[in-house]
């Protein structure tokens, strides 16, 4: 691989990350303004204004915190989101990270993200963050399985764990139609791993901000950016695995992928503002008794369909 291709690959991932994070923040501001009826500032400037506000916010520490863990956790979270986004194929000839086991790497990123989220809540050594962290882990462990079964279902017709092959297997029919349960389940997991909206068990308002109750300053900025980045990564992988990736009639491939990613991002942001947070016990039961059997059903359907 030439040096030029290397640089272009890395830059494309970083650019997609930056644009995606900005879009998440803008969508969120617009949807919130619409729902709450406020005539707030413009949605286009809001992400930059919020970021600048957090840039100037002073730092905070607690009495006996684990400072390296507190600072490193948001950095690691952002890194995992970037690594996930790097797996997404932009075109049949341009994939930043074209691993033959891309699905496995994505599956490894999700539980590592859970660990890092827990670390962030554990580090400040304060009651509310630690409650949020432990509560999050119980649910985080539950829906990781759902995402992996759904992605394995997508890998079946592709006969490969490579994301490029998954997109190419959707040439006749997109997976969202071929395996209808797949995309909704994947989006639920996306909400969970980015602890967004209904599945925000760690930074919840009923814990006074939970894991983020003791944060101030740059850590808060980085944590918000990491969350948005994880949403972007989930949307991009969802668009790749279920919505046919770069395939589409008139526009060039990467533009289609960008549009599909933005569409999924909008869906995730809207769900975040519209759905309430269920009680942890109730959601745990639902994840294991409803969502997981649904993902088995999805897998069986995919299996039968692949053999026909």
């Amino acid at each position, binding site marked *: 691989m030439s040096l030029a291709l290397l640089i272009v690959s890395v830059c494309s991932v970083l650019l997609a990350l930056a644009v995606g994070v900005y879009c998440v923040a803008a969508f969120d501001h617009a*949807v*919130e303004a619409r*729902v*709450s*009826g*406020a*005539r*707030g*500032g413009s949605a286009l*400037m*809001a992400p*930059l*204004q*919020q*970021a*600048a*506000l957090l*840039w*100037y*916010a*002073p*730092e*905070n520490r607690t*009495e*006996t915190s684990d400072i390296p863990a507190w600072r490193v956790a948001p950095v690691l979270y952002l890194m995992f989101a970037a690594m996930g986004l790097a797996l997404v194929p932009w075109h049949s000839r341009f994939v930043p990270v074209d691993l033959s086991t891309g699905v496995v790497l994505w599956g490894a990123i999700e539980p590592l993200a859970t660990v890092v989220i827990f670390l962030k809540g554990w580090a400040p050594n304060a*009651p509310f963050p*630690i*409650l949020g962290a*432990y*509560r999050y882990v119980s649910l985080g462990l539950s829906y990781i399985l759902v995402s992996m079964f759904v992605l394995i279902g997508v890998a079946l017709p592709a006969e490969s764990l490579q994301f490029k092959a998954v997109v190419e297997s959707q040439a006749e029919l997109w997976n969202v139609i071929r395996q209808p349960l797949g995309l909704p389940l994947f989006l639920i997991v996306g909400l969970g791993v980015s602890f967004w*909206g*209904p599945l*925000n068990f760690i930074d*919840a*308002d*009923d*814990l*006074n*901000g939970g894991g*983020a*109750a*003791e*944060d*101030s*300053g740059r850590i*808060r900025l980085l944590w918000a950016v990491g969350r948005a980045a994880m949403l972007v990564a989930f949307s991009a992988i969802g668009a790749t695995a279920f919505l046919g990736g770069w395939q589409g009639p008139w526009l060039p491939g990467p533009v289609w992928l960008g549009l599909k990613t933005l569409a999924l991002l909008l869906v995730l942001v809207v769900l975040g*503002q*519209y*759905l*309430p*947070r*269920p*009680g*942890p*016990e*109730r959601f745990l039961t639902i994840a294991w008794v409803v969502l997981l059997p649904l993902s088995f059903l999805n897998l069986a359907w995919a299996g039968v369909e692949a053999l026909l």
Partner: protein
Amino acid sequence: MAVNWLRKLASGAPVPVFPIVGRAGESALQALYLSPAVTVTRSPRHARALAVLGVIGQRDREAFRRVHDQVPAPRVTFWFSDTAIPEALRSSVVIGEASTDIGAQIARAAKALYGGQPSGDVDMCPDEPPAPWKGVGDGHGGEGMMGGKPYGRPMAMPEDDLRDGLQLDPLAFSIGPFSPLLPPGMVVECKLHGDVVAQWELVGRPYERTLAPVFYQALEEPVAIADLELARAASHLRGLAEALQLAGLGAYANRLRRGAARLTPGQSVDKIGGSGVLRALRWSAGTEKGVVEGDARVRLRGPGARAAGYPGDARQNDPAYAALGFKPVTQGGGTCVARWKQWIEEADQALKLAEAAARSQTMSSPSGLVESPLGPLTKSSPLPDCSDLIDSLVVGLEWSEAIAVLSSFDLPAVRDLDSTRAREDAS
């Protein structure tokens, strides 16, 4: 130059404020929620300004000093209260005026901080750890394996668990008077085993709630029923907004608050809050919990009692209401979701009554007994506080369920007409 541009961007965003709500501070808090210049945060760490709204009681001075110092410096303290300003803050505090939007006043004061200049707001507590630990005991304050106070606080000791007999550590703390999770002024000693509440002890009662003036007027003179019912609906909607915020729907909570500030007769809760307020609450935590049993049931009042199936409502005795076709609404069960449903249905009923009353210009008949949103209100005995009902209800519940149960009740006492009692705490 780039730094100035960044500063201008930062000034464009709403200023985060942490409110300290004291006695009679509720209306100022609602004004802050609706102000576009500020965002109300749940934690002082996320705020640049501290807004003191309402009168802080004498017993909560220490807690106020602690929360004030927990807002990261440099900060701005905004004083919109009758409490005397503490000595240390006298030079740096920003005094609020009631004439203009207090949110805008706070924002103006806080934006000066982005320039980097210090605000002059000093800490009120001494700069030392909770217990001395440098060089004490093992060098960091600990003694032996788990004793002493390492880094200033003791380690937790194991104790038997509620449910399964495992001996693990409890998490013990007191939640104070200015927590957004509790009614303002309520202090609780809490012990958690994991996520589950093992012990909940009320240490300080919440401040009395100040109702809209129309309820106090209705005790003595005829008042337009439309106004009375609009105020009742507004109060219920604000309670629902708090419950929605705890369920993670902050945008919907703000929408309800905005709607509550601009109520007109004939609206419906569905239109104001978006359809599905009840559906959202049904999904959230703690819906089937919080049933008051046994002897404590007699202390339920107002919507809480009606949600448990007791159809008592002071408006039944009023012939003006009977003329409008009023019948009390009740639910069965007395669970959290029943109480929320009761609020929604009473708010809907109140808005319909207001519409009918506005058309026929009906006035209420003063009888010394008024049904307020918290319960029956008389001149002689204001509603007492019933926060100790919660103590037994919440043990064994998981944290989010416990907070949901708390938010479904209207616990505080109601402030009576005699406002001189508030003055004696202010000095």
